[in-house]
């Protein structure tokens, strides 16, 4: 059947614009899918890198239970790739009232270069590193205006020691950290001298050989080393890191999910139209003896060609785009963490498979339908696609919608993820089923409205949307695109806030961490513009609840302020009142964070013993909470912190003020030369954002790509619609529709489709966001804030794209000769 192939080739050549847009949408889909997938993986790997921090590719740590450890202590196992001995210490940097912890690190440079080579600004190498030299990360030096060659003074064990800044390094590799402060690299001999360390190394970091695993290596080392003397452990908890990284790369996978849905829809609708367009030809060929199989096969071959071309071009383009995005990110982070470009094989395979499989399936469905149609009907041109909403389908749609919306509310555990996935897909699928009816209802309403404001053209335009396949198709695509943009933006913004603003929702504007006497607190309260001042007693790691260690216990005399200052989220809202009552009643009450509740196996109402080893007392558990703004695991009334645990100085002070900066300056002055860590929340957040800001850049770029795909999809749709509508426009023109009227009607139709699509998208994306946060919720102690503008802007954008997409058809139909369309049956 060469002739059919030849026909298709001619067709491709003739319909250049459509073939192009079609290929472009497959290509973009494959590309976007690949990029979003890979960027998610790259991002995850960057997150892991950050979490591993200093250890780099080393995954096992060996320490002595007491004292130092020597290179000879580590057995020469074949599973060891590299062992890097390190010595660690700590120091304090002080300038203008700022105190910053600077952790000191030294290592065998050769081994360190293998497991985690420091990256210097200016790409140099660490050479001739000796004496009182120091390497500091750029984040630290730029903050305090330190340059290479400057002298910095660090307090080590209370003694000031001067160092010469030998090099400035990127905030990467050993300098990466996930706690506040900075890490500095010293020569090995120097660190031993300043710390007075004589005992070999403080720790060995070991990288397993390529064919070994961390688990293997740990058990081998444990076997070889005396258990009583050495401690062998995993550097970081890989599972924990993976889970954490996954959560932070969630927006990227969400982007993948939406680009997948959009790709499927765009490709499918394109093929549907193409097949419809080719029906007469299919009929003709079949009437002259081509079998159903031949026709199907040849049309599928064509789609296979599209799919492969799209994939083959799309993925390499994706690699370039990915590099571009990550490099852009690298640039803004030239002083920061380097994000590896991970081209994941599953990503490549998945994107290619989607391009090909979706193309094939999308083509197969309509082709099969077409090839089964009675030849006679096709030849006589009697096949018109019906698009009357059927009650059954609408019913299924409504039920599916309700089930999808409710399901995540009733699931828990792993089922929650399944329910969440089902819910996201279900909401989209249900909406697609319901869109025809909704459009009909909306068009009836709009008919009246436009009839009143835009005359008969408006009325006809609105009327024309009823039972109109082209229109529902457009609205569907628009809905998917707009809701994708909304969901991605909301989740993206959420992640931004989540990782950059731990004090989100907390009222405090500044805090001081250090020893503070009651007089100190009184002085702060009297400062000009100070509003709420909340001093807290702090016990770190010296209290147990029953026998469970509590890492941080705080005492407060104003639980109500505590609640709002630190944004405590009680496990259940009635607990807030219950806890307040218990604290006010003067009994021994404690509220405990959810992690600690779980660890200790506590329940609300339990009576537990809080003890510091010497004395213990019974406390009633009056509530449980989670909070991102405080690390406190347990909170008790301050009078018992004094009476039971002998608290005298406050350890933390939180405040709100008209001018938080002014208060902070005075607090620092009050502390004088006493070590403290005091920041306004704004300062703290700026610090945090400097680290994560660049991570978020790619997310915004990806949103742009989604927009691009959406725009291409909508334009593709409007274009193929025009192909279908040509005849209708010709009919209208033959009975006297002028170009001006046509323009008006097309714009009204475009605007209305845009409007309906936007309204549906806003509602559905709102529900999708609910689902997303229900699923992610248990892990995060934050609720999303929905910005109405995100919704409105995305909706407006959708309407604008549709209106822009109407311009081409308007111009095309201007030039169109109705005679030729009508004759061309």
């Amino acid at each position, binding site marked *: 059947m060469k002739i059919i192939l030849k026909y298709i080739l001619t067709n491709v050549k003739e319909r250049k614009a459509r073939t192009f847009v079609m290929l472009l949408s497959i290509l973009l889909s494959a590309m976007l899918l690949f990029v979003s997938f890979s960027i998610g993986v790259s991002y995850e790997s960057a997150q892991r890198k950050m979490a591993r921090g200093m250890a780099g590719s080393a995954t096992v740590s060996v320490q002595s239970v007491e004292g130092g450890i020597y290179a000879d202590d580590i057995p020469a196992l074949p599973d060891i790739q590299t062992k890097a001995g390190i010595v660690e210490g700590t120091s304090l940097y002080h300038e203008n009232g700022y105190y910053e912890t600077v952790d000191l690190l030294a290592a065998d440079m050769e081994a360190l270069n293998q497991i985690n080579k420091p990256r210097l600004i200016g790409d140099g190498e660490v050479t001739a590193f000796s004496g009182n030299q120091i390497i500091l990360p750029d984040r630290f030096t730029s903050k305090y205006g330190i340059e290479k060659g400057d002298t910095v003074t660090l307090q080590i064990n209370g003694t000031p020691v001067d160092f010469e800044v030998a090099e400035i390094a990127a905030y990467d590799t050993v300098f990466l950290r996930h706690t506040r402060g900075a890490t500095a690299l010293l020569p090995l001999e120097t660190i031993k001298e300043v710390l007075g360390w004589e005992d070999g190394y403080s720790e060995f970091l070991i990288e397993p050989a390529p064919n070994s695993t961390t688990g293997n290596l740990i058990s081998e080392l444990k076997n070889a080393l005396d258990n009583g003397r050495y401690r062998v452990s995993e550097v970081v908890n890989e599972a924990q890191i993976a889970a954490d990284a996954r959560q932070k790369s969630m927006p990227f996978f969400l982007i993948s999910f939406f680009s997948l849905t959009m790709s499927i829809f765009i490709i499918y609708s394109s093929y549907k139209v193409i097949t419809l367009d080719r029906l007469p030809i299919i009929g003709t060929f079949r009437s002259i003896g081509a079998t159903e199989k031949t026709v199907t096969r040849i049309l599928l071959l064509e789609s296979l060609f599209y799919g492969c071309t799209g994939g083959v071009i799309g993925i390499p383009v994706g690699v370039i785009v990915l590099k571009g995005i990550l490099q852009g990110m690298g640039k803004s982070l030239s002083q920061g963490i380097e994000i590896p470009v991970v081209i994941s094989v599953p990503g490549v395979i998945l994107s290619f498979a989607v391009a090909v499989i979706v193309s094939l399936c999308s083509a197969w469905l309509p082709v099969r339908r077409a090839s089964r149609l009675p030849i006679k009907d096709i030849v006589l041109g009697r096949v018109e696609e019906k698009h009357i909403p059927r009650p059954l389908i609408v019913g299924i749609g409504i039920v599916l919608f309700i089930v999808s919306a409710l399901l995540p509310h009733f699931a828990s555990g792993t089922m929650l993820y399944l329910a969440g996935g089902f819910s996201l897909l279900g909401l989209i699928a249900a909406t697609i089923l319901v869109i025809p009816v909704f459009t009909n209802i909306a068009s009836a309403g709009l008919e009246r409205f436009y009839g009143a404001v835009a005359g008969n053209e408006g009325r006809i335009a609105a009327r024309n949307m009823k039972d109109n396949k082209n229109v529902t198709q457009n609205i569907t695509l628009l809905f998917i695109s707009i809701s994708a943009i909304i969901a991605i933006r909301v989740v993206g913004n959420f992640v931004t806030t989540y990782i950059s603003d731990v004090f989100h929702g907390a009222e405090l504007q500044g805090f001081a961490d250090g020893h503070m006497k009651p007089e100190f607190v009184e002085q702060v309260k009297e400062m000009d513009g100070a509003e709420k001042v909340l001093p807290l007693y702090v016990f770190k790691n010296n209290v147990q609840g029953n026998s469970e260690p509590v890492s941080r216990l705080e005492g407060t005399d104003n639980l109500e302020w505590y609640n709002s200052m630190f944004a405590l989220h009680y496990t259940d809202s009635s607990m807030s009142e219950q806890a307040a009552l218990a604290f006010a009643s003067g009994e021994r009450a404690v509220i405990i964070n959810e992690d600690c509740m779980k660890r200790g196996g506590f329940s609300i109402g339990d009576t537990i013993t809080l003890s510091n080893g010497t004395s213990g007392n019974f406390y009633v558990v009056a509530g449980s909470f989670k909070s991102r703004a405080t690390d406190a695991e347990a909170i008790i009334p301050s009078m018992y912190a004094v009476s039971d645990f002998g608290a005298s100085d406050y350890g933390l002070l939180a405040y709100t003020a008209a001018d938080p900066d002014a208060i902070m300056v005075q607090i620092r002055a009050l502390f004088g030369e006493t070590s403290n860590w005091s920041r306004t929340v704004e300062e703290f957040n700026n610090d945090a954002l400097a680290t994560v800001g660049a991570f978020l850049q790619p997310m915004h770029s990806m949103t742009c790509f989604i927009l691009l795909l959406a725009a291409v999809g909508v334009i593709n749709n409007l274009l193929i619609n025009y192909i279908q509508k040509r005849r209708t426009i010709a009919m209208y023109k*033959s009975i006297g529709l002028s170009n001006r009227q046509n323009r008006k009607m097309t714009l009204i139709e475009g605007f209305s489709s845009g409007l309906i699509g936007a309204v549906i998208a806003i509602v559905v994306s709102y529900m999708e966001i609910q689902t997303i946060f229900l699923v992610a919720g248990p892990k995060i102690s934050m609720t999303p804030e929905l910005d109405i503008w995100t919704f409105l802007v995305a909706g407006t954008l959708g309407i604008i794209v549709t209106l822009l997409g109407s311009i081409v058809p308007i111009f095309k139909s201007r030039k169109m000769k109705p005679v030729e369309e009508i004759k061309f049956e």
Partner: protein
Amino acid sequence: MNILTEEAAIEGKNIIKDFQLGDTKTRVLKNISLKVIQGEFVSIMGQSGSGKSTLLYILGGLDVPTSGSVFMNGMDISKLDDEKMSRIRRQNIGFVFQFYNLIPNLNVAENIMLPLLLDGKKMRDYKKPLKDILEVVGLSDKQGHTPRELSGGQQQRVAIARALIGNPEILFADEPTGNLDSHTGAEIMSLLQRINKERGQTIIMVTHSPEAAKSSNRVITVSDGLLQ
């Protein structure tokens, strides 16, 4: 024929039509002049490809001649702009095609009313004419149906009703029975004949069928781009 109706409904003067196909230019209509009197029912016949449809479309203002003019009410409609020409199509001309050309998602009544609606008229002001025309074409019980629920003959009746609703001066029809079986075709022809007789409607129709042509009062034959 009565002197009062001797007035020309439409008049074509020296119509020439060339089609450019790539480098080759073919002259399809080679200087055609004709005059159709009000109330006349004219059939245009001729071999396939002789230029019948081309002539009809030029007379009906759907296409423009390469040279020559078409006069309707003393006005040369071949040189009007889109806005004016569209208005003439809505108010003075009705067209019926071989393939009905109805808007599939509008119902019968809406399809019929379309030219009036496009002309800014209100549906409610035309209840009576709509009812009348539905009666004329025999579709009074079908006005809420969509085209796909109708047979070919019924669809063609809708198309005729749509062409007539605005009381056009001239009804143009291009092979209105070309897509119908002979029985249905005959019914349509007798409908057109009745409209011509009872309402004095001027009709210009292209047809291949000598049988159909019998319904008209004059037959024009196009051959090799000229009138015979």
